[in-house]
């Protein structure tokens, strides 16, 4: 990586220093709080998407009668456009660093559960459902509670952060075992 000192080299690096990235997310939150008067968050807007997707399945009457969907009705507002931005950012970043590639079964999963795509996709679907249900129950995800909540020293944010890590560690012990085998 001799090109690391040139700006274009930096932009093409597949990974940036995690402390630099963390500090940048911190500074991004200053801008978001100060400029648009919002916290950094994802899942509140995602609830509107769920409502919009649920409408053809459950029927418009069921969705519009639901107090929670009514509270979080889908609209192209700040939160929703922020999600569009995150997708755009992920895409641009992957293209510029030339790291865009289709991944169905990631390495760590394959090592433990084998190459079955059906198995992995089923687990991802279930995991996604749990993540969203949990985020709504806690009123925020890793961004809204874990980062935005914690950086404001919110009691809920820190509780979320600590319980999330405890739960994740126990879950990974159950799924992957404790073995620290000599790995690849």
């Amino acid at each position: 990586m001799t090109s690391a000192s040139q700006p274009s080299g930096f932009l093409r690096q597949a990974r940036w220093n995690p402390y630099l990235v963390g500090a940048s997310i911190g500074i991004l939150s200053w801008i978001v709080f100060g400029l648009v008067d919002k916290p950094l968050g994802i899942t509140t807007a995602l609830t509107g998407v769920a409502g919009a997707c649920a409408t053809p399945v459950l029927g418009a009457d069921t969705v519009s009668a639901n107090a929670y969907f009514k509270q979080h009705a889908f609209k192209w507002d700040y939160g929703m456009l922020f999600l569009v931005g995150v997708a755009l950012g992920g895409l641009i970043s992957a293209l510029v660093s030339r790291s865009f590639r289709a991944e169905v079964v990631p390495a760590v999963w394959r090592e433990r559960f084998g190459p079955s795509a059906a198995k992995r996709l089923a687990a991802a679907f279930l995991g996604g459902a749990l993540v969203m249900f949990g985020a709504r129950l806690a009123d925020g995800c890793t961004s809204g509670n874990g980062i935005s909540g914690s950086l404001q020293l919110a009691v809920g944010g820190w509780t979320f952060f600590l319980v999330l890590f405890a739960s994740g560690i126990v879950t990974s012990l159950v799924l992957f075992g404790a073995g620290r085998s000599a790995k690849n």
Partner: protein
Amino acid sequence: MNFLAVTPPVSGSAALVAAVVLGAVFGVLLHRGGVANYNVIVNQFRFRDFTVLKIMMTAIVVGGIGVLALNSAGLANYHIKPANMLGVVLGAAVFGVGMVLYGYCPGTAIAAAASGSVHGLVGLLGTVAGGTLYALSFPWISSHILPVGALGKVRLPDVTGVPAIVWFVALIAIAITVFIVVEKIERRAPPSSSS
């Protein structure tokens, strides 16, 4: 705590443009930070890769000190969510199970799906199902779970009496200690989850 009486510097349609730009910056940071990667996230919980912890703790300390300064200067409002303790504890526990199974959280999943993760995209369909399930169970949850241990929009300085600045001094000390320890661990066993 100070409150802005005026509208934020950027509002209306300018805020909508800002949303896309700020979201894109967040998406780029998540992707280049390596956290739009299943292996990196799962290996955090297996203590084999500490990227997630490094990013989150740095973001909390840097972000928190800045937002505290902005708020003290009357330039930013706090946005505290109500601490419904039973809901937060149960929600975070379920979230942790889901995050290891999925390998993403909602934000990193969006960045990952946009950069080619097919299972990330399928999991986003799962989040739609999970959100719908929550909305349908909301009447019961809002009367049976959310009121339990509802402390309101409280901050650590409110419940402990310890000022925010002291919390941040302590957090900086904790963060530096944690970073020294995890760097030592990673030097001994470099994370294999970079790809």
